[in-house]
């Protein structure tokens, strides 16, 4: 009788139990994290969606009337929604590319050899590491029309003839805050791109320069393809973060003057937290989430194709 002839029922039970354990174990190990995520992320999300279908004003907690899509209909007839949406698009469309460009230039500079390079690399992180509220207060003082250094500087240079109330003028307020956010966010791009640059083998550049490729062509054909993966991810993350961030706006202007610096997340926040209209605030938040998801999906499809 050879070993292969052992009847099936005589197989030891242990391996079966072991493989079962192996199947169950990952779920068992993951479930605490998943449960916590479900409880603190998905449950509130579902709750928000549910609230958006109701008329729910916090100071009348007993009235929780189902009104279907009425809140959403109201959203699309709301002048402030469209103003906020326009500002949100400008906000994302200008801030993210500006951060990307500034970050790219910074990363290219930091990738050069120069004395004190590690120090420069550490210092560049500072804007990113500061809390948003600190940044917002700091820039609010920079822009101040009575004491701000920005006005003082521009007056001395003769660029402007009289102090400009940067944050109190509806034509300049949004731009001023976008400049603040660009300053805050560019180190993120710089660090990500720097990591990407360091992953490109030096030999590529050596081969290219032997072939007589100019600096621009080296950048175009070696550097850019080398960091494209990093860029796609970084841009995606930044679009989502910038779109959702309203802390800097909230501290600097609170949305004012008038609606000049309202963005959608800020509008939803003010509606829910200040006006206590949680139904309408939720509808705004849900609408914004759907719009953002559409942008993200389109972006991933297009860049995914381009990368392939």
């Amino acid at each position, binding site marked *: 009788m050879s070993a292969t002839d052992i009847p099936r029922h005589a197989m030891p039970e242990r391996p079966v139990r072991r493989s079962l354990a192996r199947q169950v174990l990952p779920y068992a190990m993951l479930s605490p994290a998943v449960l916590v995520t479900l409880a603190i992320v998905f449950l509130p999300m579902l709750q928000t969606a549910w609230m958006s279908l109701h008329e729910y004003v916090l*100071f009348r907690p007993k009235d929780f009337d189902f009104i279907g899509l009425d809140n959403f209909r109201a959203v699309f007839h709301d002048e402030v929604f469209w103003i906020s949406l326009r500002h949100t698009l400008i906000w994302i469309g200008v801030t993210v590319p500006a951060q990307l460009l500034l970050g790219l230039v910074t990363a290219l500079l930091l990738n050069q050899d120069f004395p004190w390079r590690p120090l420069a690399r550490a210092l560049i992180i500072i804007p990113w590491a500061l809390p948003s509220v600190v940044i917002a207060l700091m820039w609010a003082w920079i822009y101040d029309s009575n004491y701000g250094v920005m006005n003082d500087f521009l007056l001395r240079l003769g660029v402007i003839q009289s102090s400009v109330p940067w944050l109190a003028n509806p034509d300049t307020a949004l731009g001023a805050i976008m400049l603040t956010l660009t300053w805050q966010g560019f180190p993120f791009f710089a660090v990500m791109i720097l990591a990407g640059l360091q992953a490109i083998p030096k030999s590529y550049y050596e081969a290219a320069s032997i072939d007589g490729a100019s600096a621009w062509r080296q950048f175009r054909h070696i550097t850019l393809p080398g960091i494209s993966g990093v860029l796609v991810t970084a841009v995606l993350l930044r679009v989502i973060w910038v779109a959702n961030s309203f802390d800097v706006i909230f501290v600097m*202007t609170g949305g004012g003057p008038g609606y000049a610096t309202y963005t959608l997340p800020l509008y939803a926040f003010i509606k829910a937290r200040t006006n206590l209209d949680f139904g309408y605030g939720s509808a705004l938040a849900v609408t914004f989430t759907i719009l953002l998801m559409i942008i993200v999906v389109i972006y991933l499809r297009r860049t995914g194709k381009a990368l392939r």
Partner: protein
Amino acid sequence: MMNTTIRLGLTASILALAASAASADSTVRFWYHFDNADNPMDALVAAFEEANPGITIEAENVPWNSYYDTLYTSIVGGNAPDAAMVKMFAQPRLLEMGALEPLGERIGAWEGKADLLDNLLDLTAAADGENYYLPVQYVALYLYYRADMFDELGLGVPSTCDEFREVAKALTRDTNGDGQMDVYGFGFRGGKGGHDHWASLTLSREGADLVSGMESEAAVAGTKFVVDLFREDGVFPPSAPNDGFQEIIGAFKAGTTAMTIHHIGSANGMVEALGDKVSAAPVPECGGGHWTAFGDESTAVFSTAEDKDAAWKWISFLSTAGNNTMFNEATGQLPVTKTDSAGWSLHPERFVTATMDSLPFANLLPNRSETSDFVNTVWPVAMQRALTGEIAAEDMNAEIAELFAE
């Protein structure tokens, strides 16, 4: 006999133990907001606990910026404090939520009632006539002005809107000849909380009324007057549309503005910065009427409080002579008891006089649910849009009328 004595003694001590256990259970959670860093609440709590053994006070200083947001959410979430500092504008909403405990009977039976300043209880009564609030401090808004600048230019303190405009124009000037304005006539608060400035210049007018008369000619003229001061006359600093409390007080102390409107709470800080150069007077009379804001602060017991008697004891303690002085030392406002008011010496006299002179025409905003939205969003947004020329004065008043018409 011996047995009976022991038994009696035992019973007594058990009763005493039970009694102390029962009263030791009472904890009053109290929310308040003080800007002052060296706040004397601990001293008040200690004094109260000593006088009322068995009641523990957990006093929590909640930041002002999110005070009402936090309060409303805590009530809805079933975690409301037992008692708290509250303002009149929040009363309709708190009542709508069923959150307030009626205090009328308790106030009626309270020995401190007679010592409260006249008509404070009428001012803080709810629309249904019941008292849910117990006043703890008050202020009235008045005009701060730079006496030295007025003297230098030979100007008199303005008593009407027209005089106010002339004076503000004269005070707005370039003092060092560099082509830049260095002093502005009036520090207008265009951001949240600035409705009092606007109201003094607008709601004072005959025919202007927040709830039913915002689209009247007088009310539109009032708003237009404010907008013109900024856009035509340029007597507010250019940052006025966004300016809040910090900015208007800071600019006045720094000498960037020559007048502004606020209450006695900032008087000591102003004197510290400017000394005798700062003085005060009632706000000007406009369009045939006089209006200034009455700044109220009361305490209330919540309907969910576990031990309402203990909560009442604590809040009535704060509004009793002596304790009320201690309380107002921290907030820089004025006491609500006759005894404390009589010997009041914590503010220079000219500011107390300006407050007293303002009381006959001091008003509260309408006791309505919409008032919160008016204060927090509708007024600031509409005012900023009007000041920056996005909408006309009529449009601003129409937006306010629409809110109260709902």
